[in-house]
């Protein structure tokens, strides 16, 4: 399925999750609260730290649970829908659970010209998942991403914070092996 199809069918990686009423079940870790408060100091308005805050929570939990939206809103002094509006806009914020490792495979033009389709198919074949899906064992989530700015070394992908260059279908397996 292409990314435009995914968007149309509502299974886009940019989640449309609806805030549920489980705000009580989520407790912001004290370290995360401190980290968010530290980020606020960099800006003239606490709201500016909303992306930082979402990333801080996501780093601990792997994704951003519903309750975290309320908790972040409280720390920043803005409404939960405002936080949710930000969380659902940015594709690197996950509003539903993802695997332990997130593969972001560049599907932009230079990688497309140098073998994106073959690399993406090799990954899908090996893990038996398509774009936007997670392996049943929770090891990998596969997402498309736009140009990673390494076009001279394409095809390119990121796994978590690591960027892997000059991929080919037959080197995909050894890259994936590095992630448990």
């Amino acid at each position, binding site marked *: 399925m292409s990314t435009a199809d995914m*968007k149309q069918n509502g299974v886009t990686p940019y989640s449309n999750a609806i805030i549920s009423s489980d705000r009580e079940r989520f407790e912001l870790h004290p370290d995360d609260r401190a980290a968010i408060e530290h980020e606020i100091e960099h800006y003239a308005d606490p709201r500016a730290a909303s992306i930082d805050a979402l990333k801080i929570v996501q780093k601990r939990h792997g994704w951003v649970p519903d309750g975290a939206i309320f908790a972040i809103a409280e720390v920043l002094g803005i409404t939960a829908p405002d936080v949710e509006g930000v969380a659902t806009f940015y594709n*690197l914020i996950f509003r539903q659970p993802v695997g332990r490792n997130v593969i972001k495979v560049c599907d932009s033009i230079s990688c497309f010209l140098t073998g994106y389709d073959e690399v993406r198919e090799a990954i899908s074949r090996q893990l038996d998942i398509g774009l936007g899906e997670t392996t049943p064992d929770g090891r990998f989530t596969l997402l498309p991403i736009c140009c990673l700015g390494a076009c001279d070394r394409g095809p390119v992908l990121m796994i978590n914070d690591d960027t892997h260059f000059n991929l080919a279908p037959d080197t995909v397996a050894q890259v994936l092996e590095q992630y448990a």
Partner: protein
Amino acid sequence: MSTANLAEIRPLTYRAKVGEPLLDLSLYEAQDGFVAVRNALKDMEPAAISQVVKDSNLRGRGGAGFPAGVKWGLVPMGPDAPKHKYLICNADEMEPGTFKDRFLMEHLPYQLIEGMILVGYAIQASQGYIFLRGEYVVAAERLNQALAQVRAAGYLGKNILGTGWDFDLHVHTGAGRYICGEETALINSLEGRRANPRAKPPFPQIAGLWGKPTVVNNVETLNNIPHIILRGADWFKGLSQGKSPDSGTKLYGVSGRAKRTGLWELPIGTSAREILEEHAGGMKDGLNLKCWLPGGASTDFLMPEHLDLAMDYDTIMKAGSRMGTGLLTVVDDTQNIVSVVRNLEDFFARESCGWCTPCRDGLPWTYKVLQAIERGEGRQGDIEMLEQMTRFLGPGKTFCPHAPGAMEPLQSALKFFRGEFEKGIVA
């Protein structure tokens, strides 16, 4: 060639090679680093800095080519100007086919910081932000390390070098979305909002970040500033070696199926042929050049017969495209143009922020039609509809340049390769 000579012809990159970053402040200072800041803050009025840059005719390297000094000239100055003013570096490099700012930030973080201090001083900014895309993890780490050293050395902070001017920089990392590269969307994103563009006017220089005067400049643009201050406007103008009325050098690059893809700092106005054939070694064996994007996904395709054109803003504009970021994406003759354009429009459809209807609805529709044509299932009238789209989504019809940019490769592909589209229409 000696380092001193290289500094005068390849100012942006002479201090670092691919894989050999310069990550030590004292080494940077030993190669003229921060001399421009020390000189300027001691001897120059803020307005004089803007004037030198205006005289140098440095044009914005983010893609639009707007003269940098003129952009700053709109910022209110003097005792009645707002107390808070902001400088933002647009380091949200996400234009498909573009990989120059990554190199500069990973290899020469001090040069960007030095440029930002100079521009900050020129507009008397109170705070600067580097808006860095979240995926550039290595650049974030190196910029933050460099900032700590630069702060400790007294080039950032309170009362910088005894001038009474306070200024600091913060690296803000994003969370994705191409639209953040549009400067008003970037400002909304930095404020912690959805990255929908803002209406202009007011321009950011008057009312930008938190309603205060704000200048947004690209990474490569800012990297040029220390050199212009150090060596002057006339030297900068001479860098193009008569190849172009534009000034300076440019980071050019090639991606796609060429022999030696990469990035090179060359006089602005260097021909696309020299870039592709001499520096990138031409297309891979057995492949021929079919067409090329001069500077990213949002620029019109050009053909092999355009290769002798000078890669500068006005020449490429006259040929019907835009220089954009100046990094060539070469398409080889094994590629079906419909598939190539389908890939581009899939990107633009996904990255639309959804704010205005022509873009939000027109781009997915365009993509669907291209997909049908690619599969050989196009219907009579589809090509005419795509042509109509290039007008409905063109300049002036949408809130920001996203959709018009998306139409550039489509309209040029239809112009040069109409026959390939026709093959995908069911008779």
